[in-house]
Each structure stands twice: as structure tokens, then as C-alpha cells.
């Protein structure tokens, strides 16, 4: 029986897939198809997040999408020989994508569409439940929208875990001619890439979330402050914004309502500290990204002195599904006060790296071994840093900690943005502690002394410890310095640099020339 429509072949355009040669693979498939006189429809979808298998090519069949991975240009001819367009057997054939255990075990809410759709196709977005939450929001008052977000239990996914609804409510309650929605897309934490994936692979969900925030609190202008290291996200966002404008989802009187919401992407310029909300606002205003004193809160006096919601990409991208399925649906996931799901990013020395969205409550061990498959090097995993460069290093004895904001606080660690970076037993934890100080010194905005000076002194003290110079004196000095930074810094950069430093020292004292078992508090 002759096929009516050409077979759909999906090759991701996510930048991690591109970094492993997805463009070359796509080109090879098109060339080979032409050579053989076979008509195909090439779709550049987002990534499913199974980065250890990228480039992951999918073929649309009657039974569903079949995965072949990882596909390099050299594999393409043999795939055609095996009739992969009709699901032919091949060593790279992994079966139906939806049936892959790695995906099946996940609870994808925020990432429901990621990897499935063409990121910049508004038709695709709408066909896969896009703008449903927005349509519901249009029927509600601002206070009702804010209540739904509050009731969902959503907390800031950028790292601070502040209840999103409470922040929105403050802005809602402010009287002002102008309010702003600012999306913090300055994802600078090592080991994190979920923001990037949303922006590259499903940009409309962020646009929808920001639009809902705008109509909820009466803000007419939104800004996405995007890090300059993400050129692909910039392209994807701008293309999606242009399409949303054209279709009437952005601009004046959106979808025939009385609401106006405009959206613009602003490029950051490579300063890590601008991920801190007040320095981000300074930067948006065209200034040096120096941290502001709080109060006033940005919700009351934010961008250009006006009430402003500053939320992380994932927080905003989660709003549409909450408004679509209801607060109760979302809050049913999770544990304790950590409600809903967390997109976890497996990185570093892990065999099966990628994005795992799960309800709060899974343990690090499940993630590292069940999903991650252990280390990439085959050596034992010795330490794990959760929550970016300001997150604590955890030893194996803490791998059973459930991913929950409060459970992590109990062990003096942070969940942050959900990035997990694993290190095998070749890691030198004193060197990692030194790096934490070094990074802080490079990125400090310079406004407060503990961070500006402390970070540089920290590098020097660790160097002395490594060299064995006045060892015990310098060990107490590094603790003392950490205490000053922890309590005296203006923002989380200086205030949390002691997390990686002290956790390394406490859990891995042997790397600092101390006795192995001597664990100090």
C-alpha cells in the first residue's frame, strides 16, 4: 500500500543535541533520502532530554514515534538499508520513544511538550494543549489567578523556593500605572539546563506563563533577561514571540480581551551575579549589575522603581499547566511543603545524563543510579553537588535524602535549581573548595566586603591549607571567613559560597590533610 504522506523524521534542534552533531545527522538523512528518491518530512523538534542518547532520531509510524539513537552521519546509510522509515530492525532501534523506561518513569508536567513538538510552531503548541491555561485565566479575575497559583503550592524554581503566589499577590496589591513581569533567564548555575531547554524547546509555554502573570497582576510589559551564553534560546524565543504577536497572543487587546501584554527579550552580558533578582533589575535598567539592598522588595519597587514580578523560567513555564488543570491537580504531586514536580538535571560524571522531571520526593540515589546509571567513568561516585556552584557537596552517606526543599535544608544543603553534578573518586575536594572561592571572586559584584574581599582571601587560605602551611590555623581561619561571608554578605553569591567550601571540608576532611573520620559541624 502506497503511503499518502511522507514519513516524518524528527531530529532535535536543542543546542545540546546540536553540540553532539544533530545538524550533521539531519543533513545526512536528507541527503540520503534524496539519493534514494524517498520523500520524507524532516521536523526539527526539541530534545526529549535523554542527552546521553543524542542525537536521538525519531520516525513517525502508525504505532507511534520510534526512537533510533544515537545517530551519527555514518549510521544513516545503514538505517535506510534497514528500512528505518518503516520501523526496520537496526542496532540503534530503541523501540517506541514513549515506552522508553527513562521517559516512562517521569512525571512531565512543565516539560509535557518538550521534545515532542516543533518548538517554534504555534500550531503544534496549540495542538498539544498550549494556551489552555491562558484561556481559563481570561475568564478569571486577577485575584482568582493569583489564588490558583498560591493554592498550587508552586515555589520559585530558581533556587530560593519562595512561594510564587505570595510574590504575585504583593504585586497585585500594589497600585501603580506601570507594573512589570521579569523572567530571570540568567541560568548560570553549572549543572543546570532546564531553563535553556524550555526556552529552546518549548518557548511558547514561557510566553504563555508570563502573559498569565501579566493579566493576573495588571502588568503590560514583560522582559526575559536571557544570558548571553544562550544564542539558540535567543533565536527560538524571538521567533516564538513574533509568532505569538502575529496571532494576537501578545500585544494590545490580546485575543480580543481588554488585556495588553508586550514581551521583549533582553540579553545579559555574562555576569553570574545578575541571576540575583536585584542585580538583574539593575542590569535591565542599563547599569552595572550590583546587588540592591532589600527592602524595598522588587515586588513593590522593582524595575524602574515599579512593582515587578521576578520569576525564574521554570516557575513561569509551570503556570500554564496549573491554570489548565487546576491547583489541586498540581499540588497532588510532591511531598511536604514541596509541591508539584521538579525538573532535575543530571550532569557531570553521570553515564545517562539528561532531564528528569519528577514529583518532589525522589532520592538522589534513585536519580544517580536508576536514571543516571552510575558514573560515566565507571568509577564510584564520591561526591555530588546539588543546586549549582553555591550548593553543598554531598557524600554517599547522604544520597538517600529525598529531593525536597526542607529535607535538604536539614542536611545544610540546597536543592536550588535542581541541577545535580556528580564527581567520581578522582575528585580533589580541596580543589573544588578553592574553585568555589575563585568563582565567587570572579563573579562578585563588589558591593559588599565579605564577598568581594572574602572570596579572594578564601582562595589564598585554601592554597595555604593545600600546601600544608600553618595547617590547623588556616583550617580555623577558613571556617571563620566562611562564617563572615555566610552572615555578612548582601546576597546569595557571597552568602552561599561557604556551602560548597564547608561541605567539602566537613564531608571530605581527608582531602584537606585532616583525619578521615574527624567530622566537625
Amino acid at each position, binding site marked *: 500500500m502506497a503511503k499518502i504522506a511522507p514519513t516524518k523524521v524528527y531530529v532535535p534542534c536543542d*543546542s*545540546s543535541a*546540536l*553540540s*553532539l552533531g544533530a545538524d550533521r545527522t539531519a543533513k545526512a538523512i536528507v541527503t540520503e533520502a534524496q539519493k534514494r528518491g524517498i520523500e520524507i518530512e524532516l521536523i526539527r523538534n526539541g530534545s526529549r532530554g535523554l*542527552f*546521553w542518547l*543524542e542525537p536521538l532520531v525519531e520516525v513517525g509510524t502508525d504505532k507511534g514515534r520510534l526512537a533510533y539513537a544515537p545517530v551519527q552521519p555514518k549510521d544513516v546509510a545503514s538505517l535506510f538499508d534497514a528500512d528505518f522509515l518503516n520501523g526496520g530492525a537496526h542496532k540503534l532501534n530503541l523501540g517506541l520513544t514513549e515506552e522508553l523506561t527513562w521517559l516512562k518513569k517521569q512525571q512531565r508536567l512543565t516539560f509535557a511538550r518538550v521534545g515532542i513538538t516543533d518548538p517554534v510552531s504555534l500550531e503544534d503548541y496549540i495542538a498539544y494543549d498550549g494556551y489552555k491555561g491562558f484561556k481559563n485565566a481570561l475568564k478569571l479575575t486577577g485575584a482568582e489567578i493569583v489564588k490558583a497559583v498560591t493554592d498550587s503550592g508552586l515555589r520559585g524554581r530558581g533556587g530560593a523556593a519562595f512561594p510564587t503566589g505570595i510574590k504575585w499577590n504583593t504585586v497585585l496589591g500594589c497600585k501603580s500605572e506601570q507594573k512589570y513581569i521579569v523572567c530571570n533567564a540568567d*541560568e*548560570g*548555575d*553549572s*549543572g*543546570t*539546563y532546564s*531553563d*535553556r531547554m524550555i526556552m529552546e524547546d518549548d518557548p511558547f509555554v514561557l510566553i504563555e506563563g508570563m502573559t498569565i502573570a501579566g493579566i493576573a497582576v495588571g502588568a503590560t510589559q514583560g522582559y526575559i533577561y536571557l544570558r*548571553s*551564553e*544562550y*544564542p*539558540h534560546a535567543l533565536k527560538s524565543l524571538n521567533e516564538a514571540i513574533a509568532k505569538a504577536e502575529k496571532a494576537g497572543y501578545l500585544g494590545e487587546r490580546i485575543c480580543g480581551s481588554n488585556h495588553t501584554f508586550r514581551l521583549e527579550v*533582553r*540579553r*545579559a*552580558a*555574562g*555576569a*553570574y551575579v545578575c541571576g540575583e533578582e536585584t542585580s538583574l533589575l539593575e*542590569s*535591565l*535598567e*542599563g*547599569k*552595572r*549589575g550590583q546587588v540592591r539592598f532589600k527592602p524595598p522588595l522588587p515586588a513593590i519597587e522593582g524595575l*524602574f522603581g515599579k512593582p515587578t514580578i521576578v520569576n525564574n523560567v521554570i516557575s513561569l513555564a509551570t503556570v500554564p499547566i496549573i491554570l489548565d488543570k487546576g491547583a489541586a491537580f498540581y499540588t497532588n504531586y510532591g511531598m511536604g511543603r514541596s509541591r508539584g514536580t521538579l525538573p532535575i*538535571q*543530571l*550532569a*557531570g*560524571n553521570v553515564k545517562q*545524563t*539528561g*532531564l528528569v522531571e519528577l514529583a518532589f520526593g525522589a532520592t538522589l540515589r534513585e536519580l544517580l543510579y536508576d536514571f543516571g546509571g552510575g558514573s*560515566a567513568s565507571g568509577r564510584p561516585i564520591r561526591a555530588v*553537588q546539588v543546586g549549582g*556552584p553555591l550548593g553543598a557537596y554531598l557524600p554517599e552517606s547522604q544520597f538517600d535524602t529525598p529531593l525536597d526543599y526542607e529535607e535538604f535544608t536539614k542536611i545544610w544543603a540546597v536543592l536550588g535549581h535542581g*541541577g545535580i*553534578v*556528580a*564527581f*567520581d573518586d578522582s*575528585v580533589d575536594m580541596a580543589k*573544588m573548595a578553592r*574553585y568555589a572561592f575563585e*568563582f565567587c571572586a*570572579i*563573579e562578585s*559584584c563588589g558591593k559588599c566586603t565579605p564577598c568581594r574581599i572574602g572570596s579572594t582571601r578564601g582562595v589564598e587560605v585554601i592554597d595555604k591549607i593545600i600546601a600544608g602551611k600553618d595547617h590547623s590555623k588556616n583550617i580555623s581561619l577558613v571556617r571563620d571567613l566562611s562564617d563572615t561571608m555566610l552572615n555578612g554578605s548582601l546576597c546569595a553569591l557571597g552568602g552561599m559560597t561557604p556551602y560548597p567550601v564547608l561541605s567539602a571540608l566537613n564531608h571530605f576532611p581527608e582531602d584537606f590533610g585532616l583525619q578521615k573520620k574527624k567530622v566537625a559541624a
Partner: protein
Amino acid sequence: MLELILKSLETFVATALSIQQLTKIEAHIAAHKTMPGALLPLLHSIQDDIGYIPEGGYLLISKALSLSVAEVHGVVTFYHHFRRHPAGKHILQVCRAESCQAMGSEKLEEHIKSTLGVDYHETTKDGAITLEPVYCLGNCACSPAMMLDEEVYGRMDKQKVSELIQEAMGA
């Protein structure tokens, strides 16, 4: 005295703009000056076009945005992304962050530096490649990562890096 005059003349020449640069900067200013918080978008568009932010442009920018020259200088120097001098034909950014370290980026850094014969923030003698450190490219699932101009590369090893460098040197 003569030395001093020569020195200031040198500085003047070094900071003066070519007619071409002047025209370009004026066009970027005209396109951006009414934007709220215009300075960063303006600096980006100047750098995208010219390759760096010429110091000779500070006065023009400051006047257009009602800022002092010091404020413009302060912003340019605060952000790692903005450069005050021309870069090489290509910019190679190597990730130094934790995830890449966990996958052996340090050895790769040494290899790159010795292959190119430069340290970070330096440009190869032939002007082909400027080497920069970067702290996360969001490609942590494919560490070690780096970026050549605007393309990201993942799971890099010595051989792949050498090939990439060779390609960039030739292009």
C-alpha cells in the same frame, strides 16, 4: 615632557574612532536611545557589529543616554561579555564550571592553551582565535563543553578539540 606628549598622543590615536566606526555607533545609538534601559542593548548591538566597544565611542553613548563617561565605562567593564579591544576572527569559550571539571575539562584546558600558545583572554598570533573561559554553557549533560563563536560543542576530548581548532584556524 616630550615623552608625556607622545604618550597622550598615542592614547588619543588609540581611542579615536575611524569614520566608519563613528557612523556605525551613531546608527546604533539612534536605533536604541529611546528604549527603556537602553545601555546594555546598545552595547550589544555595537559589539555584534564592530566586534568590541571602542573607548572612543563612550562620549557619544554617554551624551545620547544622559550618562557620564564613567558610567558607560563602568558598565562596559563590569560585564565579562563586553570587550574593549578587538578579538580574533573566532572566539573559543571553554567551560571551566563544575560539571565540565567532573569530566576532565582541566586537562583539556591545558591542551588547548598549549595548542594555541595562548592563555585565557589572549588571541593567537595569527589573529585566528581568542581564548576565553566561560562558566557554564548549559550543556552540562554533555560535558566537557565549549563554544566556538555561537556553536556549542559537547563531550569534547583532545582529538575533537584539535580538529575544531584546526578547522577554525583554516576558516
